[in-house]
């Protein structure tokens, strides 16, 4: 019962974060912002699903740590590929649509 509840919880939370990552990828305005959503939220999502899979197979006669290996692999490779994609975007000089910071109080507005 507790195992079922834990597996269900990790399944729903993991897939929800995968959905959050995809929505962020679709809705954020420029590439360097869009880079954040899948690399963070989707990594968390797949981690949750693999945790659910680990608990499920550990209680169904197939214990193993292979899920942890995949989780480790995902957590190691997601920042590397995100770093390479960010470097590629800087190399291509993609436009950032982030607004400029407001001027400091008391600064000369014409400067």
């Amino acid at each position, binding site marked *: 019962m507790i195992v079922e509840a834990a*597996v269900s919880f990790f399944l729903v939370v993991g897939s929800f974060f995968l959905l959050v990552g995809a929505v962020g*990828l679709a809705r954020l305005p420029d590439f360097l912002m869009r880079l954040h959503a899948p690399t963070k939220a989707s990594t968390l999502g797949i981690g949750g699903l693999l945790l659910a899979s680990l608990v499920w197979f550990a209680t169904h006669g197939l214990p193993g740590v292979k899920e942890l290996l*995949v989780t480790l692999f995902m957590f190691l490779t997601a920042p590397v590929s995100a770093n390479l994609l960010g470097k590629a975007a800087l190399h291509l000089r993609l436009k950032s649509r982030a607004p400029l910071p407001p001027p400091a109080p008391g600064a000369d507005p014409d400067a």
Partner: protein
Amino acid sequence: MIATALAVSFVFVAIALAITFWRLLRGPDAPDRILALDTLYINAAAIAVLAGIALDTPLYFEAALAIALMGFVGTVALAKFLLRGDVVD
């Protein structure tokens, strides 16, 4: 309870796949498409893990591992191509 959670998870991941595929088609730049492809790989691995739990077989788990590996290699190769104009230099 597991069945309901699995159904909800399949629906969530399917919607995520559809949205990501829309971004892959829309672009507008090459890094956007590569990022969408990388996210599609992650979501495909998630579908494989979910199928493994739903069908109660550890076989799909190896598929998820292979998809994750190939996805990383493909993303790195495409990003290196954008950076250098060549995959291996």
